[in-house]
């Protein structure tokens, strides 16, 4: 198979990459661009470890082809912290010990950020249903939900 040239934007930076036609966006990010913060837990859309945004929409990057990123904006965990420091969600995940092994964490943070951008004041049930596509086998979810709740209330408080 001949490789395909893809021009995309990742975390605000223009990127050029050659991808196999059957590569997933997850493969393209990890192997093509060396952005290994996005994880593979299943490659079948069932675990959310590969969560990224594509033109602002939360997707499982294992279910999108790399070639589909052409001309689009991709947001990954590597772009969540801005130059000045951690995003509130990242800080709250740390403070609440919302990660144990941490392999699910990039996916949860990307997914939670997409939630808070859509709904800045979600209740517990909304958080739990929004994050139902992200598996965590370590934490039992309690501290993850609390971290997201805390981040939401901090973001709501005027600085």
């Amino acid at each position, binding site marked *: 198979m001949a490789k395909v040239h893809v021009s995309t934007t990742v975390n605000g930076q223009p990127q050029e990459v050659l991808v196999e036609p059957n590569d997933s966006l997850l493969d393209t990010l990890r192997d093509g661009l060396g952005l290994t913060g996005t994880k*593979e837990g299943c490659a079948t859309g*069932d675990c959310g470890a590969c969560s990224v945004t594509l033109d602002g929409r939360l997707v499982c990057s294992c279910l999108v082809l790399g070639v589909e990123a052409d001309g689009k904006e991709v947001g990954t*965990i590597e772009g969540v912290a801005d130059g000045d420091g951690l995003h509130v969600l990242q800080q709250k995940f740390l403070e609440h010990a919302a990660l144990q092994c*941490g392999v699910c964490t990039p996916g949860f943070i990307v997914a939670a950020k997409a939630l808070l951008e859509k709904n800045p004041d979600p209740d517990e049930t909304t958080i739990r*249903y929004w994050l139902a596509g992200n*598996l965590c086998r*370590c934490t039992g979810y309690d501290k993850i939900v609390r971290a997201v709740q805390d981040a939401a209330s901090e973001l709501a408080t005027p600085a």
Partner: protein
Amino acid sequence: MAEAVDLKAIGTRPVRPDGVEKVTGRANFGADLSLPGMLHAKILRSPHAHARIKSVDLSGALAMDGVVAAISGKDLPGGGDLGVNILAKDKALYHGHAVAAVAARSAYIAEVALDSIKVEYEPLNPVLSIDAAIADGATLVNESMHTNGDTSQPASNIAAITKFERGDVEKGFADADVVVEGEYRVPTAHQGYIEPHACTATINEEGKATVWCCTQGQFDVRSMTAQCLEMAVSDIRVIPSEIGGGFGGKTTIYLEPVAVKLSAISGRPVKMVMSREEVFRATGPTSATLCRTKIGAKNDGTITAASAWLAYEAGAFPGAPVGPGCMSVLAPYDLENFAIEGNDVLVNKPKVAAYRAPGAPQSMHAMECTIDELARKLDMDPLELRLKNCAEEGTVAPYGPQFPAIGLKACLEAAKEHPNYTTPPAEGQGRGVAVGFWFNIGMQSSAEIRIAENGAVTIMEGSPDIGGSRASMCLMAAETLGVPYKTINAHVGDTEATGYCNTTGGSRTTFATGLAVIEACEDIITQCKQRAALTWELDVDQVDWQDGQAVPKPGVNADVKPLSLADIARSAGRTGGPLLGRASLNAQGPGASFSVNWTDVEVDRETGKVDVAAFTAVQDAGRAIHPSYVEGQMQGGAVQGLGWALNEEYIYDANGVMENAGFLDYRVPVTSDMPMIDTQIIEVPNPSHPYGVRGVGETPIVAPLAATSNAVRDALGFRINDLPLSPPRVLEAIDANG
């Protein structure tokens, strides 16, 4: 050892030292490494659950463009059962058993090339259940297996029988006013770590190999890989990546010898990453079990006798965790008469691996359900019944040793007072209670403490950090040295960078590696006192270490300013060279861990779905070093246990093919399935640890199985003995019970 008082660092909840790396995506996990010129390898797996392998022809694959190397079982000579499990030799022993491997320019090419390998199989009858395996005339999984190695008896699928007995069980049952019996089945469950197994290996012309992998124990990977390849351990360096969950499942190996061998043939680094389907089909789940339990008691609740007959599926090789199942089944109780028998049963399924308190959840599910039935018959509160019979300091455990201080009674009493217990379940909900136990282990650890010129502390140790253990190590070091937590960092060393350390498992890390860290800090303190004595021209006996500084002892007449760790480090070149503390040990007295859990559930009688409305876990941690991570263990274990109780199971077809090898159909709990998990940490210090630590990681998964069963029993008014309590099973039981 004296009980620690006035703790400053221990018991606080600081951010973990590896945290920023993990929330930003920088942390490198097993599959994150790439090396120049790297090949990718894939494994061909048996389509049969049981078959003789007559031949393997790799030539078709090797002829393909992009394929560089291929191997089969005969290329992996050593390792005994482990080696046979990694690549099958004469027989394929379960569906998904690895038969051959191909390394190619890309993972895609390697995958496609697998189709060109020709394997000739002679299919055999698969043995797919305990009942089939122990039936008269059963097909043998291994024709040369004799129970307990006794070749005077015919070959059998029962690899081993373990027994623990005390007193006169017959008489104990005869003395009972009430006797309760039951038979309980628990299905195979998978650890379900989110990160699939992955490794990259390279070997040079001198025969020196380097392996990067996600593992709970780099030193075990080294020794196991060496055995399989008949290499010296000193020729293999294992570098552990961050690990994306293990729960016992990453205490063994599947890929590493294959990757090293393919690298040896190709002369290039070889990377292997399992798919989720491979993880389900071919890595260690835990045993499906059949347990028969019986308890006799007086009308006042005093247990007069108990018995348990346990059979655990081992998969295709001996080694089911039935020994720990036997050790745990009656551990919470102080009994005069009991008989426990455990059977390690071979079946044509994947070789089981450790899963969090291996063996305990299954046997204790059976016994804790039986205790619940006894409480009902006696019309006693289930906590009261347990309090009446519970093991305490001085009780001789069923498996032999006498318990030192343990926290079971404290947990039961705390539960009785807990507002979540004193408040009855909501209308329409049922409540179930159960006790959990794990004996915990100690074993070997090493640690080194290095002090930088500015006084910053680096801990180098060998326990892969699976859930915040670096933070615990830093807290114990901060406490011992008397310096701020934020001046300390902890690193998990590779096999060349740190001293030998047993695998992260058995809830040993905070206890045993923690002990090594504390002792290495004490070594630093000794050296600092010497350096200060030298500086002050005092005798070392005249120097104390207080709050991170060397000071003259009270009464010593010296006009000097205290020397901090940083002061001493800065001038270390003038007082004897860099400060380096060391400790290595074989930790004894890990301290048994007990828990009490209860849950309130609601059963939808139309669909059979069980909803968990509330869950509370009370557990003795000895001393919680970082309480958030202790709570995290309790919450995570609770949810794994709830998943096993409610939904998780391996579903096999008649040919031994797993039908639900993916997260869509093997359904682990998701966020929306669960409530918040309430926790209460009890601290009955472990007398064998300076700060009182007991392992906390495994006990949490034990009690949720029976607590859930008992809650569903309470909600429905009748018992369903077998797990999981999935909608189809519950609905069927509702229909059958009218």
